[in-house]
């Protein structure tokens, strides 16, 4: 079984390393090149959110396996200001950081499972899972 990767995210260089790591793990798990690109893109968006909104955080990327399927799970955790209005943050075009506002809603569209937890003042944790062949 492949091993999980845990990385500190605090610079734009860390974003590149995270998405390269994620692509590699996705490739090892057996994802198609198209899905590898989706996973790398999702990781890039989540890692950038950490850098832009919280300055630093951690990202864990790990293979997941059940009896019937394999996939990749990514957990992005920061200890920044948190998100005041999660519903707004998940809407296309909403941004408080001067971006396109497609990062979170776009990421949610390209993965199979998406969970976001935020306590204002304590940070944000986003967990995504993508399964092979769905």
């Amino acid at each position: 079984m492949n091993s999980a990767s845990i990385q500190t995210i605090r610079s734009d260089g860390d974003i590149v390393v995270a998405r390269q790591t994620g692509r590699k793990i996705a490739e090892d798990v057996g994802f198609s090149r198209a899905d590898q690109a989706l996973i790398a893109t999702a990781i890039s968006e989540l890692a950038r959110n950490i850098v832009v909104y919280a300055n630093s955080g951690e990202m864990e990327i790990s293979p997941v396996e059940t009896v019937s399927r394999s996939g990749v799970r990514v957990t992005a955790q920061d200890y920044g200001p948190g998100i005041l209005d999660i519903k707004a943050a998940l809407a296309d075009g909403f941004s408080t950081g001067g971006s396109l506002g497609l990062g979170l809603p776009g990421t949610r569209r390209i993965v199979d499972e998406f969970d976001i937890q935020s306590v204002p003042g304590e940070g944000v944790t986003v967990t995504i899972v993508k399964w092979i062949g769905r």
Partner: protein
Amino acid sequence: MTRRVPILRQNGILIASIQEELSDGDILALQSRILSDVVSINAKAVVIDVSALDVLDSFGTRTLTEIASSVELRGARTIIVGIQPEVAMAMVLLGLDFRNIATAFDLDHAFDLLRAA
């Protein structure tokens, strides 16, 4: 680590040939170099080869769009070349696009487009 993208000049055309994955800072550095080079040689077109990129996320897409818009205001054209098919698919699913920016599948195609204009 900073990655400096080579920018070639040929007959008033700037050709930025991205060789490897770029960080956000690298893309911003490329943006300012292209804009200053466009002015210094009065470039009539900018061709940006992105075929080496495995990911074009919201930041990369937005910055390339900003480059193209600024170049256009200067009176020159921008062509984005060689978006990988997987990257294109990921962009579409994410809701990103290069609306109003010319794209070409390779450099030859880009020069055909410039000649035809």
